[in-house]
């Protein structure tokens, strides 16, 4: 079974290079676009949750944020994606790739919200008071003072999130998107060779995660240049 493993791997890669390249692009697009969307959603939810106001609007918004996070963290991403695609958006003619981005963005948003909530909570209360004492509203204090510091503190956790997201995108084949996993499955189906494509697949994910880790390390180094 392991005969000529390396040469067979090379053949699989070269013979399917453009096909696999497209598949890889889909994986990366879903990962990064989903993460970006998740960060926007997470920020909005975190701002809602950090608002000290006890007014009626704030309470309603907090209830919404709580429910959102409960549902999106409490059900599998695959199930969310299947429902979004087959029940809601697929029948409307929305492209599967876009549905995948949306699904992963919505899902990641719930987790990013929790990460940012923790990061906001870790900012010294004096920072908030200093902002308020300068005459900033709650929102302005968040925008100018608290969030920039919170994002910085959250970088390691957000790095984990993007890596987890990358690996989780391997299920998008469920809704007909051809990512790198689905791509390899198709090669398996065509060639009846199970070993090589799947080993290659694992290796590709490993390399991607390794590169991401390096990039994140570099990023942290630049951002934390001045110390905390």
């Amino acid at each position: 079974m392991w005969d000529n493993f390396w040469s067979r791997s090379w053949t699989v890669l070269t013979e399917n290079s453009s096909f696999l390249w497209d598949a890889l692009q889909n994986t990366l697009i879903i990962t990064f676009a989903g993460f970006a969307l998740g960060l926007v959603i997470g920020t909005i939810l975190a701002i809602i949750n950090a608002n000290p106001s006890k007014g009626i609007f704030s309470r309603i918004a907090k209830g919404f944020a709580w429910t959102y996070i409960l549902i999106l963290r409490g059900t599998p991403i695959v199930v969310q994606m299947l429902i979004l695609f087959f029940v809601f958006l697929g029948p409307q003619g929305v492209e599967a790739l876009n549905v995948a981005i949306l699904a992963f963005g919505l899902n990641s948003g719930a987790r990013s919200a929790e990460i940012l909530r923790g990061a906001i909570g870790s900012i010294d209360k004096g920072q908030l008071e200093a902002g308020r004492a300068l005459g900033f509203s709650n929102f302005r204090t968040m925008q100018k003072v608290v969030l920039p510091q919170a994002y910085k503190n959250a970088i390691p956790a957000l790095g984990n999130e993007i890596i987890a997201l990358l690996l989780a995108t391997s299920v998008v084949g469920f809704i007909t998107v051809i990512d790198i996993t689905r791509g390899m499955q198709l090669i398996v189906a065509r060639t009846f060779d199970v070993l090589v494509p799947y080993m290659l697949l694992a290796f590709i994910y490993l390399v991607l995660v390794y590169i991401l880790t390096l990039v994140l390390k570099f990023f942290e180094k630049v951002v934390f240049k001045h110390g905390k």
Partner: protein
Amino acid sequence: MENNVIEVKNLVKKFGKLTVLDDVCIDVKKGEVIAIIGSSGSGKSTLIRCMNGLETSTSGDVLFNGELLTKGNINKKRQKIGFVFQSFNLFPNMNVLKNVTVAPKTHGKFQFPFTQKWKKAKQELNEKALEMLEKFGLGDKAKENPNNLSGGQKQRVAIVRALMSDPEIMLFDEPTSALDPEMVKEVLDAIKSLADKGMTMVIVTHEMKFAKSVADKIIYIDKGKIIESGTPEQIFNNPQCERLKEFLSKILD
């Protein structure tokens, strides 16, 4: 009383069952420097925090220029009430220059970025900030991150930050308590220079000598009540009540 910058009227503050401030009344006249002294836990920090709404009172009013401070106008009024914290609370996500310009920039008239007007406004603001930093001996620190400054420098930056909005009154909440002893003087000198220019100020402090030399009026607070107030002469040389005498003997030994 159009001369009063801040009036505190029958202020009561309770944290749960604990009464921290009990029926406190203070008038701060224009140009006056008031020092608030008292042992720790006496409520003096809570009092000064109530003066700009960082704490909301349980009952009683705080008036700024004769106008009641409310939830609706507090952000506007705070722009004219400078506040300096014990722990500096500079923003570590900005350099010194941005720390001191962020408030006037945010509160100033909106300009579309990168237009001529925007550039001019930004330049004028930066020049004003640099001039002010220079005045407080921080001219070469404009581009530094606040984390890289000494405690005394941080507190002076915090003072400049509060001054940049041209406040009508400055409130100091134990401005030297978090400092190493050798840095206390530079901050006190900075505060003194403001007093000499006629700035209206309220200072919560443990530095009795400083209070004596800079204040027009000293207020002694104990257990949330104003026990005695008067000129530095009266308070330090001729204290009336026992508690103040005891406090002074402890602190001046």
